[in-house]
């Protein structure tokens, strides 16, 4: 048995495919690739696969991670060749590498996620710098999500506006259990409508 980690991008075709459905997408990809995933024991055996961190619906990503366990000892090159022949529209494999079997579960390693927010052409961005400064200078920023109050400010690890064409906002948000920041909430706090943006996850930060 071997454990491998895929880094992949998720495009428009899959931007509305959630985490559970991505599990199926990968399962079927492995079946088509004729690669035998290891299964859990028990009454309902499940393929052994870990996704790093759910990507919110409507986002695309340039850096998604998934770990999987294969029953065979095929070489990385062979596994990559088979996977590439079986991919579906919306997925590009960027990297494939072995991971030690002893490493902790992928989802426990993620500490933060980086997002790039592109604004639609019609959005008025005058004054965004001031809004950002204002936000950063706040003592706290209490918001309510699903009926619970939380402070958005400590979840924002970094936020930068880049005034190019097109203009974008780079934001790094905490992503650990119980303290996950969402870019839409940041946009809302700044007074922007997230439906007038395109959001790409550009990276995940792991603790090891």
């Amino acid at each position: 048995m071997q454990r491998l980690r895929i880094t992949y991008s998720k495009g428009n075709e899959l931007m509305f495919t959630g985490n559970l459905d991505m599990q199926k997408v990968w399962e079927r990809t492995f079946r088509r690739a004729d690669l035998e995933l290891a299964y859990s024991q028990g009454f309902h055996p499940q393929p052994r696969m870990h996704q790093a961190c759910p990507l919110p619906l409507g986002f695309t990503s340039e850096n998604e991670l998934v770990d999987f366990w294969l029953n065979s000892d095929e070489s990385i090159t062979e596994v990559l060749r088979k996977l590439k022949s079986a991919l579906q529209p919306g997925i590009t494999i960027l990297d494939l590498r072995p991971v030690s079997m002893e490493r902790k579960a992928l989802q426990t390693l993620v500490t933060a996620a980086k997002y790039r927010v592109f604004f639609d052409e019609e959005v008025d961005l005058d004054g965004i710098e001031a809004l950002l400064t204002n936000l950063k200078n706040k003592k706290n920023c209490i918001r309510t999500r699903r009926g619970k109050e939380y402070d958005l400010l400590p979840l924002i690890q970094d936020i930068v506006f880049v005034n190019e064409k097109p203009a974008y906002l780079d934001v790094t948000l905490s992503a650990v259990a119980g303290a996950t920041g969402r870019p839409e909430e940041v946009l809302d706090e700044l007074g922007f409508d997230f439906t007038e943006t395109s959001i790409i996850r550009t990276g995940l930060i792991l603790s090891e």
Partner: protein
Amino acid sequence: MNKKNHSFSKLKKILPLVQKPGRYVGGELNQVRKDWNSAETHVALVFPDIYDIGLPNLGIMILYEQINNRQDALCERAYMPWLDMEIAMRNNDISLYSLESFVPLSEFDIVGFTIPYETLYTNVLNALDLARIPIHSDQRNENHPIVIAGGHAVFNPEPVAPFIDAFVIGEGEEVIHEVIDCVRESKSNNATRAEKIHSLAQIPGVYIPSLYQPEYNDDSTFKALYQAENDAPEMILKRICSKLPPPPTRFLVPSIDVVHNRVALEVMRGCTRGCRFCHAGIVTRPVRERAAADILNSLEIALKNTGYEEIALLSLSSSDYTQIQELVETIVERFSERNLTISLPSLRIESFSVDLMQKLKGVRQGGFTLAPEAASDRMRHIINKPIQVDQLLNTAREIYSRGWQSLKLYFMIGQPGETIEDVQAIADLCKLVIAEGRKVIGKRANLHAGISTFVPKPHTPFQWATLDPLPVVLEKQNLLKDQLRGPGMKMTWSNPRETILEAALSRGDRNLARVIETAWRNGAKFDAWQDQFNYNVWMDAFDACEIDPEFYTSRLRKIDEAFPWDHIHTGVEKRYLRNEFLKSKDEKLTSDCRESCHACGILTEFRGLRRKEPADIWLCPERA
């Protein structure tokens, strides 16, 4: 990319605001996306319910592959948006579009609906309206697509006749190519819309309702259909393939969860059992099987193409497939290592079925389903589905003892001649079955009784029968609800008001089109959804049109009555159906027609086709 599509960015603004936006973006594995300008004929296929239900539809899958295999045509798909998306589309000026190219349906040459059941009619109107295509055939102009419809419900096309330009009756694999050829040719000859539609009438199996005019008797019963044009055929004989064509193997694999996530493969078409209530059993005759070797080969390819984790072997009666044992054994041998689920519906009530299912399931989960339909010997003779009580109890015992804890039994109330004693027999039989289960596995035994209500269907021996009036249905359901309860027992039943609508539409005539349109204008849609069906809107629509639904549901039809669907010919003679109806009144059985031919008409009507194939392709014996 072409000039006519909706921009994805416009859609992207509304998609985050609706439930399950993955329904509206396509992009599935095995989706076929061609350059718009590379094809001469553009076809949009529509399943008039939401994506989750429509995507797995095998009819669409078959035609999608058939059409896209042609160089000169492209085929794209559309499904109904759910309520929230419909509002968002209307508010944002987005018309119904195809999932491949995001092109509005109004830009296609042909828009084809599959209509497997009647409660989709209002959705068809809504789809046309959302596509900004006039709902009435006679209001469409040169720029509008030709609207065609097929599927099991259109064996009685009359209730939706004013909305459809051309109906395609029967199996679509061959006729779809003739339709496309005809439209392509008309287009290149710059034919007018009327000429285009008219030329379709020359294709066997195609029915152009605008070329006919119905006439009625003074009592509103149907008199006859007159040909408004001389060259319109008097009868439209359904299309069949003499031999089943290779099954589709490039199934669309959705990136979101839908109702069936699987490779579906028809092992055979048609049924020889002759249950008198069964519409599918008549309209899909004759029985034609696929060879086990071909099925295995197609499964292998389809699994490779899809990566699906489930296979469904489809037919109206799996146990009757002649190579069933060999097929199941080979499937187990070849596929058992792959963690696949394999389903085999419609099994006969006998222990052999339990053997088959046990072979298919490494890890037993879920339930076992059987359909006795009736519980008294009398009713079984009336409906022509003879099953011995002993045999059912033995099978149930086998099921419970071999690891299944739950069994589902389907029954149908309201069949012709049914008395309250016959309904009581259903309750008694269920109690006997669960008692068997308890003997074997004690309190873990579960029984689920699915109680549907009989709807008389056109083209069946029971097309003369009446629908039980509402109070009678309620009385029968209440009796069962009272008795089929307690530990381990569960009962589900159909909403009797939905049954009334289905029954009225099933045997409707062209006058019902006004009712359907009125109901739709007043908000009826998704009538097949229990939580969306609105009985009052429908009854108000009947009232507004001064039409009594009981005229269609529970009026006693004369044995020599002309029916609005008589011009649609399934190959089975009305004379044969009438004889079967009369036999049911005498409680006489008709044997399985593999044993001896009962001269239903299929062999006579399709003798030319049959001659093209070796005799054993059809499971019809030579006539005695």
